[in-house]
């Protein structure tokens, strides 16, 4: 075991492991430090400086997300000096873009909005910058409004370091800096594979799920933790339900294995089928060559009689069943039980081989 270092944060004595940052230690100990550019599992870049804290004997404020702890360190997270610096940062970010929350999808779930509120900023001390970009509306999946981008770089890091799709990057520098696919391409024209992780990562309303727009505000959404129905990875995801409908899919990195908050385009954007008008809604029985609607009762009667008569005439092995790699374990279990115990045959398979 490595030896522990002791330090104090806001006067509280704390033991922690060498190599941890002030931010990590504070969070482990339930001490709140706000962040914006920090994104767990990616490089700490120290870009936004919202997480600054005061460290005794340090000349300037330090970014807690980047600063490793040392023995005997004395850290204060909420001094006047810290709060003034934080406010300044947030006011600059606010005034740098179009942070009008009225029609923003992120209203109520925006980290910049949260900070303005936390710090009690009535209005920014700077003039609001004019709109610079038109909203990217090239596809039905991801909408991009760079007027709201605070250049935290989380989207860039998640795309490169977590998903390793290597699509997003910064272009230009200084006040003209911007994030996006190479050569300033739109998402749809780029190599983007629409995993949607950059949208999950964006703290503000710059990147949002287009289809969910105006379908439900954060406090109207119920998130249901479930497993992706497509490939065998079995990604954990949240179906976001508003008004009885799945409006988008998000992830929660706290769910951990197996996907650590990642998804692919199918899990992310492949859910329209749930609410498709083509869904079957009633049983159908073929009568006079046509499939016609029938009640469950009539259908069960029909099927039960037919199966029984085939079994009687030609034996149980003249009946077969195909179960499914798409349905649940419980259903596969019951299906094979039905074929074996009720019909009396082992003619049961599914498309594992296909």
């Amino acid at each position, binding site marked *: 075991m490595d030896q522990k270092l002791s330090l104090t944060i806001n006067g509280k004595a704390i033991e922690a492991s060498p190599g941890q940052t002030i931010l990590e230690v504070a969070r482990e100990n339930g001490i709140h430090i706000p962040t914006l550019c920090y994104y767990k599992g990616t490089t700490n870049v120290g870009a936004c400086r919202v997480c600054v804290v005061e460290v005794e004997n340090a000349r300037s404020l330090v970014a807690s997300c980047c600063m490793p702890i040392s023995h005997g360190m004395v850290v204060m997270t909420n001094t006047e000096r810290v709060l003034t610096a934080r406010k300044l940062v947030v006011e600059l970010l606010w005034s740098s873009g179009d942070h009008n929350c009225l029609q923003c999808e992120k209203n109520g779930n925006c980290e910049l909005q949260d900070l303005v509120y936390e710090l009690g900023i009535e209005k920014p001390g700077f003039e609001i910058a004019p709109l610079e970009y038109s909203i990217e509306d090239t596809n039905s*999946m991801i909408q991009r409004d760079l007027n709201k981008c605070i250049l935290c770089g989380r989207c860039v890091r998640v795309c490169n370091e977590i998903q390793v799709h290597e699509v997003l990057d910064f272009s230009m520098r200084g006040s003209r800096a911007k994030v996006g696919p190479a050569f300033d391409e739109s998402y749809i024209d780029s190599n983007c594979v*629409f*995993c949607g992780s950059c949208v999950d990562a964006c703290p503000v309303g710059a990147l949002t799920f287009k289809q969910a727009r105006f379908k439900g505000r954060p406090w109207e959404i119920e998130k*249901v*933790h*479930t*497993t992706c*129905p497509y*490939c065998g*990875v*079995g990604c954990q995801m949240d179906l976001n339900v508003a008004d*009885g409908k799945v409006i988008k899919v998000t992830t929660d990195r706290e*769910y951990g*294995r*197996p996907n650590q908050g990642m998804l692919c*385009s*199918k899990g992310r*954007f*492949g859910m*329209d*089928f*749930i609410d*498709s008008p*083509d*869904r*079957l*809604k009633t*049983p159908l029985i073929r009568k006079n060559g046509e*499939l016609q609607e029938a009640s*469950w009762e009539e*259908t*069960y009667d029909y*099927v*039960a009689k037919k199966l029984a008569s*085939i079994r009687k005439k030609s034996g149980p092995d003249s*009946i*077969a069943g*195909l179960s*499914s790699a798409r*349905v*649940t*374990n*419980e*259903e*596969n*279990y*019951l299906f094979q039980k*039905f074929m*074996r115990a*009720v019909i*009396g*045959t*082992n*003619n*049961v*398979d*599914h498309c*594992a*081989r*296909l």
Partner: protein
Amino acid sequence: MTNSIEEIEFSDAILAIGTNTTENHPVIGSCVKRAIRQHGAKLIVIDPRKIGLVDYADIWLRPKPGTNVAILSGLMNVIIEEGLYAKEYVAERTEGFEAMKEALAKYTPEFVSEITGVAAEDIRTAARLYAEAKSASILYAMGVTQHSHGTDNVKSCANLAMLCGNVGIEGGGVNPLRGQNNVQGACDMGALPNVLPAYQQVANDEARAKFERAWSASLPAKPGLTIIEIMDAAHRGDIKGLYIMGENPMISDPDLTHVEAALKNLDLLIVQDIFLTETGGLADVVLPSACFAEKDGTFTNTERRVQRVRKAVDAPGGAKADWQIISELSTKMGYAMSYASAEAIMDEINAVTPSYAGITYGRIEKEGLQWPCPNAEHPGTKYLHRDKFSRGLGLFTAIEYRPPEEVPDEEYPFFLTTGRVLYHFHTATMTRRSEGLVERCPESLAEVNPKDAEKLGIKDGDFVTVTSRRGSLKVKASVIETPPEGTIFMNFHFGEAAVNLLTNPALDPVGKIPEYKVCAVKVEAA
């Protein structure tokens, strides 16, 4: 998978064979890329197509389609010849080494090079990369199994892994990536003709007796028919009634003309699904089911992790969960099934399925558990064969290379190989109803190498006619470097260009998997 997804990121070397991981298991693809970019792992890709992972590979071997056994034998030949194998491990934990060694003797890199078209030196380099890694993980998917010699392919992968002591260690393993969300679970639950839940043989009297007691029913001892055999039997008239739950063999099975005739020949076809599929269109009875978002249950992923599925919205109209339909139908037929919930079914599964015995809803509320999980205290199993193999000693199998059943000839000069694309899934009944995915991938494309395109006189976007001994179809060509010269690639997502009109139903003799990955076709400008 013998090992877990989270281990891939920390393997020292990864050998990906017959898996287009970044498209078919994208999240695992990201784990592989992280292993390389962030942890310095070595990557060996073995695939006839220039798949996405090739850009990340230290070495890419591009064998002719259908020659996996030869290439894997070549790797093992080098490893044994150069003494790079795990001698202690082989001596202590395995058997059958000498016989395998003998069989491998003739697969020198030069000989393998003749069969596969891969340079002998590349075979040597790849063999050394794999053998010298402290932990090396083999990833494979349908590119290994969907062959008439698929079982030999799988065994060759296992041979290679054991040879280098990579089975039963963290970061190693032989790791099939399952294509569909719950293939693993369907197999575990006994949706197979020869086994009951947890692979207990139907032919085993003791196993059957146990289930007869649990189910209060007498059970048949004779193993049943596989899916392809069922279709053949229906074609002959021996199978008269078929109950299909959630499958669409009218697109997914090989040789569709034959499948259609078989299904039409039935006295009773019951199809239970969320949409009226191509197969449903032929049914006598269609039962509407709830989709995954409308019911509770569990899926078991490719690393054996049993995870919760939770109801988020109501099913449309009168649609019901599959488990409810089966229970009600069974009750109607005189065998009462009265489960109050999906969880009640899991309770019964716990009781009769030793590997699932400790996997209860209560325990997997937050995070799934990996089987084997034999009791309520067991933490689940991250990787298999830790201290010894399930059978005791790991068994090497001596394997001879056999060519695919059908290879190009004068009349059908191209290889056709099939697979999936990133934006669609299987028969695409779900993905094609999703606006965004269709925007990204609206239609079926046949990939043709530029050199072949030139010879055929076609350009990107032109239509071509692709014909095999079994059928013919028209499809738009995508002229692209991905397939090698002489091979075209098609996906099987689109009913209007159903590639399984063309594929060869030749089966692997053991696994009974059709040879989707290789058949011979001719291609003409349409």
